[in-house]
Each structure stands twice: as structure tokens, then as C-alpha cells.
């Protein structure tokens, strides 16, 4: 056996199987450009898109139409024009006015009559029209000589933290934590299983615990990158507030990433094909994208389903992130969310390790 060179311990740090397994996770991820795009670039593109679409701006001025057939219309028109918060268009024929109303070119049609009164024509189901009716009425009554009995003064504020972008950045972060955790573990594990690579590993002395640990370690590393890129972008580009403790935010993110990693492991525990696991992952993630308050508040859903929505992991994660970032809540302020996340973490890992099939 003289020609075979064997080596035995002591060996370097990088020769340890946990290090090698973790390096494999890095290499497989970074050598897949599409994975890098979906994990790092896509959330930022989404944030830019949403930030631009829902940027703060002056509320739109209601568009009012007025029918100028009757002679009394001139006075009403002047009253309306005197109010700077309205846009006024006059129509000389009823047909043209009705058409504008039907096609939503105007929100409200004012029809003055010979007796000096006015008629408001509008769709009471449209909130824009209801607002227009109130403002137009105020302008016309004021023009007619009504005085307000109570003096009013206004102070206008723009509160950072109350804008849509402030709402959506923590939501995108939560969604990203869920996506990378579930995809990152679920896809890679089922891919290895379907290629019989898991089975091949089982025939070596590889430690099964180290194999699973390597997924969590690489997740923790990419987690830092994901959180820093998305939040860094939010803070720099949109001045999204970070009112809570950063250490506590890091803790929330870590706990969330582990919980979603556990869910990924659970989803991947039996699936034999990549197609099968993709369906399962979408089945788990899609309801949470909608229900858990990523893009809009989950309080929009009926009260009856609220308890169900509250215990979804992504709802807890999003709520905890928002409480920390926007309201500066401490850990005790997000304790109920942390409890839900921890429960998911433990339950999914216990179930996953019980169900997991290596072949």
C-alpha cells in the first residue's frame, strides 16, 4: 500500500465537515445568479416600486362639474372657484355633464336651478364623490353668506413612520425572511434528495446533525446580508425610522429566520421531487403573503379570522418588526409575538426531525 497516501488528524479548521458542508451551501447559493437576484435584488426593487407608487403627496383635489345652463349658475360657479381645494369644470349641456360623471372625469355634478338652489348629482358609493359633495357644499354655502360659528386653525404635519413605505419595509423584510428560510432549506434539501445525494451522504460517516446545522449556519450568514441590504436601503433611500434597539431587532430577525428555517425543513422532510416541494412551499407561503400584513394591514380582514391570522408566523414576525422599528418597542413590548415565533420554531423542528426522510 506504499503508493496510497493517507492523512489522519490533526487537520485544519477548513477540513472539518461542518465547515465544508457550510462552504458547499455558500457555493451553491452564490453560483446561482437567480437565487441571488430573488434574495437581494428583488426585495429592493419591490421597495423602490412601492415607495414610488405610494409616495406622500398632497391629496388629489376633487373635480367638480357644474351645469351652466341656468343664469343663476354664475354665482355658484364663483363660489366654487373661490375654494382652492376644488377643481371646477363647467358644462353647457346636460349630456356632456352626465357623460363626464359616468366616466369619472368629475366626481360630482352641481346643477343650479332658477330658484337659487342647487342639486348635487353623484354616486354615493364612491368615497371621492362623497368628499366632493361635502367640500362643494361648504364652498357654495360660504359663497351664499354662511359663516362658521366656531373659529378653526390648522397645523399640518408629516410624521415619519406613518407613511406607506414605513409600513411596507418591515413587511418586505418579514416576507424575505420567510422566503429565504423556506426556499433556502426546502429547495436545497429536496433537490439533494431527488438526486440521491442525501442517500449517498448517508453511506459516509457524515454527521447528520452537522448536515442540518450547515443549512442553519449559512442561513444565519445570508440573513445578516439580507437584513442589512434591505433595511440599509430603507433608511438611506426613504429615511424609514429605526426607533427600536438594533440588537433587539437582530434578535427578532434571527429568531424569525430560525423559525422559517424550521418550517422549510418540515416542508422538505418527506417531499421527493422539487416540483412537489415547490407546490407545498407555495401552499404554505401564499396565505401568509396575503393575510400576514406584508403589503397592507392584516386588520383589514374580518374579526372572525383575526385569531387565526395572529398565530401565523409571518404575522407575528411582521408585527414584531414594525413594533420595534416604527414604535421603538422593547422586547417586552413584542413578547407575545416572540412567543408565537418561538412556538413555531420548536414545533416545526420537532416535527421535521421526527418526519425527516434521508432517502
Amino acid at each position, binding site marked *: *500500500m506504499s*503508493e*496510497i*497516501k*493517507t*492523512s*489522519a*488528524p490533526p487537520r485544519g479548521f477548513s*477540513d*472539518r*465537515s461542518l*465547515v*465544508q*458542508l457550510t*462552504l*458547499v451551501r455558500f*457555493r*451553491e447559493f452564490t*453560483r*446561482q445568479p437567480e437565487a441571488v437576484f430573488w434574495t437581494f435584488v428583488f426585495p429592493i426593487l419591490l421597495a423602490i416600486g412601492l415607495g414610488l407608487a405610494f409616495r406622500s403627496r398632497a391629496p388629489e383635489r376633487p373635480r367638480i362639474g357644474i351645469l351652466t345652463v341656468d343664469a343663476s349658475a354664475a354665482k355658484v360657479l364663483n363660489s366654487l372657484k373661490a375654494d382652492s381645494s376644488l377643481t371646477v369644470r363647467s358644462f353647457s349641456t346636460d349630456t356632456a355633464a352626465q357623460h363626464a360623471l359616468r366616466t369619472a372625469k368629475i366626481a360630482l355634478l352641481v346643477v343650479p336651478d332658477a330658484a337659487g338652489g342647487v342639486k348635487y348629482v353623484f354616486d354615493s358609493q364612491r368615497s371621492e364623490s362623497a368628499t366632493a359633495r361635502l367640500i362643494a357644499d361648504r364652498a357654495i354655502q360660504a359663497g351664499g353668506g354662511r359663516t362658521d360659528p366656531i373659529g378653526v386653525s390648522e397645523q399640518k404635519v408629516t410624521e415619519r413612520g406613518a407613511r406607506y413605505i414605513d409600513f411596507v419595509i418591515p413587511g418586505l423584510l418579514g416576507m424575505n425572511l420567510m422566503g429565504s428560510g423556506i426556499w433556502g432549506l426546502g429547495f436545497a434539501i429536496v433537490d*439533494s434528495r431527488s*438526486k*440521491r*445525494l442525501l*442517500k*449517498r*451522504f*448517508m*453511506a*459516509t*460517516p*457524515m454527521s447528520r446533525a452537522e448536515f442540518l446545522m450547515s443549512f442553519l449556519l449559512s442561513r444565519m450568514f445570508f440573513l445578516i446580508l439580507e437584513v442589512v441590504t434591505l433595511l440599509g436601503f430603507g433608511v438611506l433611500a426613504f429615511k424609514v425610522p429605526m426607533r427600536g434597539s438594533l440588537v433587539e431587532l437582530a434578535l427578532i430577525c434571527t429568531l424569525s429566520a430560525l423559525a422559517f428555517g424550521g418550517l422549510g425543513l418540515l416542508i422538505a422532510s418527506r417531499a421527493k421531487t422539487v416540483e412537489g416541494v415547490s407546490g407545498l412551499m407555495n401552499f404554505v407561503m401564499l396565505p401568509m403573503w396575503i393575510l400576514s400584513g406584508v403589503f397592507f394591514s392584516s386588520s383589514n380582514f374580518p374579526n372572525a379570522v383575526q385569531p387565526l391570522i395572529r398565530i401565523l408566523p409571518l404575522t407575528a414576525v411582521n408585527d414584531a418588526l414594525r413594533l420595534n422599528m416604527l414604535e421603538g418597542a422593547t422586547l417586552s413590548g413584542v413578547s407575545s409575538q416572540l412567543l408565537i415565533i418561538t412556538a413555531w420554531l420548536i414545533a416545526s423542528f420537532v416535527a421535521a426531525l421526527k418526519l425527516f426522510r434521508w*432517502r
Partner: protein
Amino acid sequence: MVTTFSALLVKGLRKSYDDVVAVDGLDLDMKVGECFGLIGPNGAGKTTTIEICEGLVERDSGQLEVLGMTWEKDADRLREKLGIQLQDTQLSEKLTVAETLRLFRSFYVVGRDIDDVIDSVELREKRDARVGTLSGGQKQRLAIACALVGDPELLFLDEPTTGLDPQSRRQLWALIGNFKANGRSILLTTHYMDEAEKLCDRVAIADHGHVIALGTPLELIQSLGATLPEPPPRVSSHTLEDVFVALTGRTLRDE
């Protein structure tokens, strides 16, 4: 080195899946230092047998000793000493040859230097190439390199040359010859009778889950030669393939 144990000792091995009996009372006794061929038509139970010996599949009943040890008592020690190539493993396409071998090397306490193994399977030029860019023969050599990197005492090769061109096959034969020359043992399954004839010290022909003939390739040819039809004039003598077909019949076996 005097060994008192067999490389592989199998007695009355049985394994059923749902309604199919895959292995039905199979016996094998393979000596240390032997290259042993397990041949048989599709569905004869070869792969199930080999995977039971590798500790990947649990047997229903029967006795099994690998290198004098049992899976029940010595699983961790056994995994250190076995080299395994499975029929259908796809190694990660994103990793390079060297990275793949380094990963496999990291699983073993004692093993070979990866560059030494890369040289022995003649993949030096592809050392830093991604697995996805390798040809079928190169991938198969890498799979065998992964089996060799833990410096195994017993090597399991399940149809290692299926689908390879003649050059790649001969390269693999040389590799197997080298391994054997170092006093190590090999259990090989194959559908190529010339391969079994060339590489194996002894051959067991299995069908319907048990061994129906056992001996050196020459013994098998001689013992059955008399009963075989005359070889075609072009061929000088019977081959193992004639024996195989005579024993297992001409009916096609589709998996």
C-alpha cells in the same frame, strides 16, 4: 495480513417491498482482497443486496457481516471503512471536482489526499472544473473518486460502467485493478459479462433474489460449457455471457 473474517458474509438474506420479494434467501461469502462480481438480470435483487450491505436499506431477515462487523453494532466504524458508488447519485453540478472531493474527504477521520485521488482517477485537468461541465465518464470517475477518498477497505460499485464509452470503461477497469492490487476488496455489479470476466476473481449469478451459480469466471464457463450450444464459428470459445444467458434465459427483464 492474516484476516479471520470475510470481506462480506451474507446468509439467507431476505427483503420484500410491499408486494415484491426483492431478495429471497441470498448467500455470499466474499474473501478479503477479492474482486467479487454480482451479476444478474434486471430485478434480480442486485441493487437491493448491495444497498443492504452498505447499510442503506434494512433487511427483513438473514445474517450479514461486513469486514467482520455488523451494522447493528458497528455502523460508525463500518462507514469509515466502506467506499460506495451508487447507481443513480447526481453530485452537485455547482461544485468543482476538488470541492466535491474535499467535502467527501471531510466526512472521514482517515482518508486520502484529494489531489492523490484526483490523479488516480485521471481528473487532474478537471480539478477546478464544475461537475456540471464533466462528461458522463468523468462524472462516473468522480463518483468513484468520492468512494476512494475515505481510503476504504471494501469498495461497492453498482454498475459503475453502465452507459460509458469503451475508453472510459477501460480507464475504470485500470482503476479497479489498482485498488485490488493494494489488497482491498471490491463488490461489483455489472451487466457487462466481459467486464465481470476481466475484473472478477469470482462471480455470483443471481436471479429472482438468490444466487443460482457461483465460481470463477473460468469455472462457470467450463462447468456449463458442455451443455451450451456450439459457439458461433467466428468466436473461439464460450464466454461468460453465454453462461449468463443459458442460466437466466432469454426473456427480457424490464425494471
